[in-house]
């Protein structure tokens, strides 16, 4: 920062070379232009109509005229824009630090000396790097070859050696196991797992632990989450009405697909076009829910076509973000300002997605929904609730059965005949003792119509029974028999259709060679060996999860405005390796997690604080605050309450009262009881308008559009959540009970147990000293609080542990 500010200050006075110093275009000028100008004024794009990749192009100039007048630098456009003295054109490079005074001096001198350049200068042929297919080069040579565990490390170490930086030492083994466990399964290691790992002195102990974690069913849960962010998954329709929707089968499909390591090409093809695969299976159709995670506007008075189109546009934008890493959305209204993407490209993609059956108002349309007649929905704990409610009704009936018996006995023949329901008519013919529950319930209802208590219990049971009968369904893509005609929309406005378009790939990318391609062809095209983006984009996003930042930091913009990769050769190696491994994502995960790069300590390094403050070079690991769902999962696991059941309908863990009334439609949130109260955060019912506050406060994705990276904020509301939220308090109570029960008899052993439950390691002497001091405080009455009981005291200790920064951080 400081250096270029100084450079700016110095410009007015300096930036000149002694006139006698001869300047060579190829040696002195062209490299400066190449580094700073070609991105916008080169082969890929020509901002302002100007190319700068040959001197001849510069002379020819762009919209503002020739870039220089030989011999007259002060009259030359080029010099004025790099100095920032032009009246209309912003200082160049645009929105980047200005050129150094030395570079400016060279350009000035070159122009003043006559702007000589070779006549045979070739224009730049290179496309922007991301549009050129990845190439697998040689592994870079490194001096400390012994450090490297696999090829990844060669790329990282080579760069570090160039910068004369030594990598960080490996993290200690407990930290490493906790890191890998959280990264691969989203759950901390149990104390037993830590113990086993520490006792395992074999050289491949870590690799085996990684294999165990990769095989865990929780792997799919952990890695489904970032994918569901991209897929904008939620359990409601969004917009203002935000009615609930069933699409959890799609979520479960993602978890299962990741667990069985469905190759990435299949994984994507099934989600984009599973319905169009020959002999598509139910599962493959469920996968197409990916593109049914669009919002549905059920507000009165809307124009349904507008919102049908909104959903199609969302599919195009999501396609661009998720698979191409391009900001396609920019081309909805006009040709992309920075990337070689036209509005026609945009609507040519639109044409692929514009042919499905659903309308814009969320009305049920044949084919848009898949039913599962054999399965019933309701909350996952419905069976136990039903059982409970049934027992309550039964108890009441049995307690007051005498009155029903008396009523039956008092019925005349005529009255019996007049009984309305068949079931009731037949029931009264049977002796009370021989009646089953159903019959008794009907009789009792008729006998005691004014029994308020019975009515309440019976209504509750009826409601649950009705839920039980609800069909399980999921939203899927289904093609119309005849595709819709698609057009461009002028300025992106659907009321202004423009030229007709047909399905096609963006011109800058390889063509789709099939005649009349459909969605399936588009999906397959992503895996064309010549495709430059698909593999790079996904390996970068996976890498980002492990290091907090992608090799391309702008994980959703691989275009010319994105940030160039820190390790381009590594990105290409990973991309080509993914293909070589037949698109196995688990193989990629394993390669990253077993690298020496990944295993480094995350301790800050004073020696790097100036040269690499944000850890782009990866001379250490980074501490990363856990994602919202994992903040919950870690507390659940530590407290021993976690119910590790996989899949099923969304659940309703408690949340503060009144949250649901923030939306337009007040919806109820009846907290799940029993096992569903303690499920992983992945399964919490996600209302778009009113997301569970404990998720929203920790930056859960909003599900409105594809989210490829979550922010990591750090706020007082997070503190209030962990401190005071009733469910986190419940977790603390459970952890306290566990500490007292399983943690031995002394404060020291209990603290040891509690620490291990939350952060996998035992406390340091200072830490346990501080908590023992707290225990003493708690045993002393203070300001109206009497001495804490044992449980109260350990609950407070448990709250401290669950609130530690370390507990919610992957170190």
């Amino acid at each position: 920062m400081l250096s270029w500010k100084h450079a700016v200050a110095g410009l007015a006075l300096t930036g000149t070379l002694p006139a006698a110093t001869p300047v060579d275009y190829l040696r002195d000028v062209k490299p400066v232009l190449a580094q700073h100008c070609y991105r916008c004024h080169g082969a890929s794009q020509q901002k302002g109509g100007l190319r700068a990749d040959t001197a001849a192009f510069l002379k020819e100039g762009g919209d503002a005229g020739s870039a220089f007048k030989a011999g007259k630098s002060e009259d030359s456009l080029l010099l004025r824009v790099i100095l920032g003295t032009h009246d209309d054109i912003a200082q160049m490079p645009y929105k980047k630090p200005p050129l150094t005074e030395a570079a400016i001096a060279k350009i000035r001198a070159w122009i003043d000396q006559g702007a000589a350049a070779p006549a045979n200068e070739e224009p730049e042929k290179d496309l922007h790097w991301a549009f050129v297919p990845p190439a697998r080069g040689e592994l870079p040579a490194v001096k400390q070859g012994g450090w490297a565990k696999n090829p990844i490390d060669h790329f990282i170490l080579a760069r570090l050696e160039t910068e004369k930086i030594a990598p960080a030492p490996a993290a200690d083994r407990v930290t490493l196991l906790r890191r890998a466990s959280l990264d691969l399964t989203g759950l901390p290691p149990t104390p037993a797992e830590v113990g086993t790992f520490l006792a395992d002195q074999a050289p491949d102990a870590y690799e085996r632990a990684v294999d165990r974690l990769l095989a865990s069913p929780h792997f799919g849960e952990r890695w489904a989450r970032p994918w569901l962010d991209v897929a904008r998954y939620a359990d409601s329709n969004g917009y203002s009405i935000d009615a609930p929707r069933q699409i959890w089968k799609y979520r479960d499909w993602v978890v299962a697909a990741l667990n069985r390591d469905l190759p990435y090409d299949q994984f994507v093809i099934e989600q984009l076009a599973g319905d169009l695969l020959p002999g598509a299976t139910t599962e493959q159709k469920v996968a197409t829910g990916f593109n049914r995670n669009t919002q549905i506007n059920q507000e009165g008075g809307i124009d349904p076509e507008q919102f049908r189109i909104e959903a199609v546009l969302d599919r195009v934008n999501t396609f661009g973000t998720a698979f191409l890493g391009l900001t396609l959305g920019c081309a909805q209204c006009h040709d992309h300002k920075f990337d070689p993407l036209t509005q026609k490209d945009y609507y040519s993609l639109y044409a692929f997605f514009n042919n499905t059956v659903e309308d814009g108002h969320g009305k049920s349309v044949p084919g848009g929904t898949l039913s599962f007649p054999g399965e019933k929905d309701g909350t996952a704990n419905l069976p136990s609730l039903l059982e409970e409610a049934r027992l309550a009704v039964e108890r009441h009936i049995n307690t007051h059965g005498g009155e029903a018996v008396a009523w039956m006995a008092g019925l005349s023949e005529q009255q019996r005949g007049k009984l309305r329901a068949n079931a009731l008519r037949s029931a009264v013919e049977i002796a009370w003792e021989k009646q089953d529950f159903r019959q008794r319930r009907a009789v009792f209802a008729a006998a005691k119509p004014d029994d308020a208590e019975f009515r309440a219990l019976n209504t509750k049971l009826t409601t649950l029974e009705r839920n039980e009968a609800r069909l399980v369904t999921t939203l899927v893509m289904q093609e119309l028999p005849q595709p819709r005609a698609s057009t461009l929309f002028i300025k992106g406005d659907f009321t202004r259709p423009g030229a007709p378009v047909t399905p096609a790939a963006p011109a800058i990318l390889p063509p789709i060679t099939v005649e009349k391609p459909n969605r399936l062809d588009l999906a397959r095209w992503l895996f064309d060996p010549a495709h430059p983006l698909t593999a790079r984009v996904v390996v970068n996003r996976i890498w980002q999860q492990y290091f907090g930042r992608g090799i391309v930091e702008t994980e959703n913009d691989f275009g010319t405005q994105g940030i160039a990769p820190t390790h381009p050769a590594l990105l290409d190696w990973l991309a080509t390796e993914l293909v070589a491994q037949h698109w196995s994502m688990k193989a990629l995960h394993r390669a990253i997690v077993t690298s020496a790069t990944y295993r480094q300590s995350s301790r800050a390094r004073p020696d790097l604080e100036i040269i690499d403050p944000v850890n782009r070079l990866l001379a250490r690991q980074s501490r990363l605050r856990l994602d919202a769902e994992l903040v919950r999962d870690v507390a659940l696991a530590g407290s021993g309450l976690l119910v590790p059941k996989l899949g099923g309908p969304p659940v309703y863990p408690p949340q503060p009262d009144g949250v649901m009334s923030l939306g337009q439609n007040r919806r109820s949130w009846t907290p799940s009881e029993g096992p569903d109260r303690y499920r992983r955060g992945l399964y919490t019912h996600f209302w778009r308008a009113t997301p569970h506050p404990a998720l929203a406060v920790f930056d859960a994705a909003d599900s409105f559009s594809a989210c490829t990276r979550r922010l990591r904020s750090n706020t007082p509301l997070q503190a209030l959540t962990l401190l005071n939220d009733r469910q986190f308090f419940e977790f603390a109570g459970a952890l306290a009970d566990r500490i007292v029960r399983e943690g031995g008899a002394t404060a020291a052993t209990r603290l040891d147990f509690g620490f291990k439950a939350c952060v996998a390691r035992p406390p340091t002497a200072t830490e346990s000293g501080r908590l023992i001091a707290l225990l003493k405080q708690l045993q002393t009455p203070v300001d109206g609080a009497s001495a804490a009981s044992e449980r109260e005291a350990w609950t407070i200790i448990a709250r401290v542990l669950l609130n530690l920064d370390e507990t919610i951080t992957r170190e």
Partner: protein
Amino acid sequence: MPAPSPFDPASCLSQATRRHFFSRCAVGLGGIALASMFGDRKLLGATTPAGGGSPLVNPMAPHPGHFPARAKNVIYLFMAGGPSQLELFDYKPKLIELNGQPVPASLIEGKRFAFMDSSHGTKLLGTRRAFQQHGRSGAWVSDLFPHTAKIVDDITLVHSCAANLFNHAPAKLFMNTGSGQFGRPSMGSWVTYGLGSESQNLPGFVVLQSGPRGPRGGAVNWGSGFLPTSFQGVPLRGNGDPILNLATPAGVSAARQRQTIDAIRDLNLQRAVETGDAEIHTRIAAYEMASRMQSSAPELIDLKGESEATLKLYGIEKDTPSFARNCLLARRLVERGSRFVQLYHTNWDSHGGPGENLQSDFEKVCREVDQGQAALVQDLKARGLLKDTLVVWGGEFGRTPMGENRDTTGRNHHIDAFTMWFAGGGTKPGISIGETDELGFSPVADRAHVHDIHATIMHLLGLDHKKLTFRFQGRDFRLTDVHGELLTKLLA
């Protein structure tokens, strides 16, 4: 050279560091060691999040805008549902005269309205409300707003407001975020992102609600979109905990809570020493702020200290939640340094159906807001707060000059012309801006589009709407998208 972002990492961090960490937090273990270990450079580097965006150490620390501000704070009275300007402020004798006549086809040709599929009316509807001129300014106000009529010389009426979207949820988003798409930051988020907040005990962006239901679209109206969640609006609730999870769990006393937080702080400090991660200091600061909020938020909503005269001015009855009470809370919030306070009141959606007629239902909602909003302006003025506080009043759109036939005759959504008013904070009081045509259909002068209103509000706060940007998905986004012209007539 573009001006540096007002969200200057270096100054923000150094302030945050000194105030929150060294003066408040460094009393535990290792404080001294830390003081020498962490320089600003270190904090700067280690806390810049991936993406190179904003630093995370107390992003709410106050920082200056692009140029000197006229307004320090904003109180935005959002009339959810779209109040009828024709029943309140935009007096149209010609419309009354032509009551029942078909609307001239030239006016509605090519226009799109809500409920296009239903047979809404196309006949002009003159208001039945009595209008009078008030104050030195002679502004027209109907008899439905007797209290508001008394403050016309302190406010600026803008009759020529215009929006793009005619369904509630997208229109509300548009008014709040400058876009009908979900996922964009709201105005309060942009403002606190740009300026931070003076209050270190209360949230910088607070949302209060009254009326029969929440506003359509819910929390996205005050969401931070792609900005960090630190900048999202914090609902201050009328019932229960004023802020979610504010109350210490049952059975834990305030003293025990303090002991708990102290222990968390000390252990976190220990970890900060061990790991060298400055992010832990942010967390420590967040816990301290949370702890202060636990006492300052209940103090905020406790109106015991307010005089009888003040309560009477607002028309506040006891502790029942109401718009008037929220107005008083808004004053108390800006007094305590909160930057942006937004009040939502539903329901102004006067289509003419049950519960939404232009007669008794409309009178009711007018009564609910009239005294409170007028009292707010008067109270702010009397306390010398109005010069620093911009009050904004308006809905997501207005209503059509045509009647809409449901159970009764109401009005449909109208985005071409509607009225908002502004007070204080560097606006020019006692004038009306932006005449509409004689039927009130479209502005004939000084059209004030939502983007222009946003640009002007930002300007009053010392922010250049073109420079306050955030890079997301490869593009520098701003509240005003690629639009927004200053409404210079609105400026004092």
